[in-house]
């Protein structure tokens, strides 16, 4: 099953294409990070995956064949938006209560345990938490929904996006993993090398900008159509910073004659 599957996906704002002709399939059970320069269409793509943006062209389906943004899809996908837009006038406890009432499943104990671990007080107003704490709260809310998949748009924090998708999300493990992927691109690169293991890098051409798809392999071998190759993170990040377009990393080797787009 693919968590996100798109074909010919495009979004145009006025005369500008935010995303053009993206063909992409992100399978479940993989931790996937989407990297690209500003304006590469990362947020647009993620917003389309949860129905916050409607495509101009092409189509996008999620968790199998569900319509992006439908209740059936949102029941399985927890989305963490950029800047953690939460209700600033509510207390942390009310924010938990609110999210519980907006969803079918809810794990109050895990949410409270995680907030305690992070030293985020339950009685404080969300608006009085630090930016980092608010981001953590948003993530906690997403994970306490016990979703099958998490799509997190962490661009402002990390200058890239992470799509975390697995069959069953285990709160502690998943967050560690998410944060590991997070720190491996933001923290000292060498220290994160062991986390990387193997990364498949896919790049896509779109209107002069390039988006990269970083995939950390799961326990299974790479699915058909995916190119997996070992690469050190330092190498990756340096190459990316040097010139996102002319990356030294192995690109995709599509079998079919798809002409452009993010390839799986």
């Amino acid at each position, binding site marked *: *099953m693919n968590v996100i599957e798109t074909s010919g996906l495009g979004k145009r704002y006025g005369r500008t294409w935010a995303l053009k002709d993206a063909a992409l399939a992100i*399978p*479940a*059970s*993989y931790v996937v990070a989407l990297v690209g320069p500003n304006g590469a269409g990362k947020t647009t793509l993620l*917003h389309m995956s*949860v*129905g*916050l*943006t*409607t495509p101009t062209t092409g189509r996008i389906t999620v968790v199998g064949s569900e319509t992006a*943004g*439908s*209740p*059936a899809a*949102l*029941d399985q*996908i*927890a*989305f963490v*938006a*950029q*800047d953690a*837009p*939460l*209700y*600033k006038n*509510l207390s942390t406890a*009310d924010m938990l*209560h*609110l*999210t*519980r*009432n*907006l*969803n*079918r*499943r809810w794990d109050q104990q895990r949410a409270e345990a995680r907030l305690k671990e992070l030293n985020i007080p339950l009685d404080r107003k969300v608006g009085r938490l630090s930016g980092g704490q608010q981001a953590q709260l*948003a993530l906690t809310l997403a994970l306490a*929904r016990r979703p099958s998949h998490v799509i997190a748009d962490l661009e402002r924090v990390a200058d890239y996006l992470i799509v975390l998708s697995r069959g069953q999300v285990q709160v502690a493990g998943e967050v560690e993993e998410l944060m590991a992927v997070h720190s491996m691109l933001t923290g000292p690169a060498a220290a994160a090398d062991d986390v990387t293991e193997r990364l498949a890098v896919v790049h896509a051409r779109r209107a002069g900008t390039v988006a990269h798809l970083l995939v950390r392999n*799961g326990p*299974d071998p790479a*699915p058909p159509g995916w190119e997996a190759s070992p690469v050190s993170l330092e190498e990756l990040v340096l190459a990316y910073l040097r010139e996102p377009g002319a990356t030294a990393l192995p690109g995709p080797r599509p079998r079919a004659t798809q002409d452009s787009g993010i390839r799986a």
Partner: protein
Amino acid sequence: MTAVAAPSPPATRPRPVPWTKLVWVTWRQHRMALVGVTVLLGGLALYLLIMGLKIHSGYASVTSCHPARSSACQLASNLFTNDYHPTAQTLTGFLLAVPVLIGVFVGAPLLARELETGTFRFAWTQGCGRLRWVITKLALLAIVVTSASYMFSLLFSWYYQPWLAKGLDGVLAPQLFALRGVDFAAWTLLAFALGAIAGVLIGRTVAAMAASLAAWAGLNFLTALFLRKHYQAPLVVKGASPSNTNPPWVFGQWYTGPNGAVVSQHTVRNVAAHAPASVQNSHNLNAVTAYLAQHHYTQWWVYHPESRYWHFQFIEGGWLLALSLILLAATVWLVRRRAA
């Protein structure tokens, strides 16, 4: 990734998030607005209640005065009217703005604040889906504000009743018409619906408030001034002013001359100026009318009798309700298709 040979049949749809949970969400997020409405209406209701009791007891003593025609009773009646009636009339002018205050302050921020602060990205990506979310909020708040203002207008009707019983005001008079019956509640609902749709269209709280306030005021103004009198063909009578127990809603009068053609007010004044001093100095307006009638100048009146009150109330309540429902449905549709 495990390859599945055959696509598994679509799993049975999970039961959606129960409405009761969304009711809690609505209450938690809009309780401050609802408290504001309660304080506003509650404060005014308290005033109406206290003053209403005074007025009703005063009116009871005036009606029980015997003999009713005596100058003492007339004086008591006049004093009573002068004590309370001007205040009551001033109050009606203020109360006309209450529906739009309630509707706009509850309706406009409902979606505008979510769009303005970006929290719609949180609210619309939860498991309940944005459709259920918006329908619950709109329906619940619409019902609450409409029924609250309906109950308030019932209290106002009771408060104002003595003046109607004394025949001082007509029930079709624009100010009173909008404060009694179903009209007050219907205009509140429309203000709420205008606020909600302005919120989703504009996406900024203050701008949405201003826009819906302007739209409401314009519509209210046009209705009271031009539209309402066309709900039914008005009656036209000649001679003395139409009157029964209460003043009817007169919105037009003119004179016709001896040849049956309409004449200007200037002409009428000229004719009246030639009347004998006994007529000109008479305090009875009917004396002038009678003099004019002798000279074949007839006065005509266009009016709606007060017996049409409920008919008009239901016509106006009906179209306001229909318009509000259309606006609310359009708001739901806009939320559903909105691509931020």
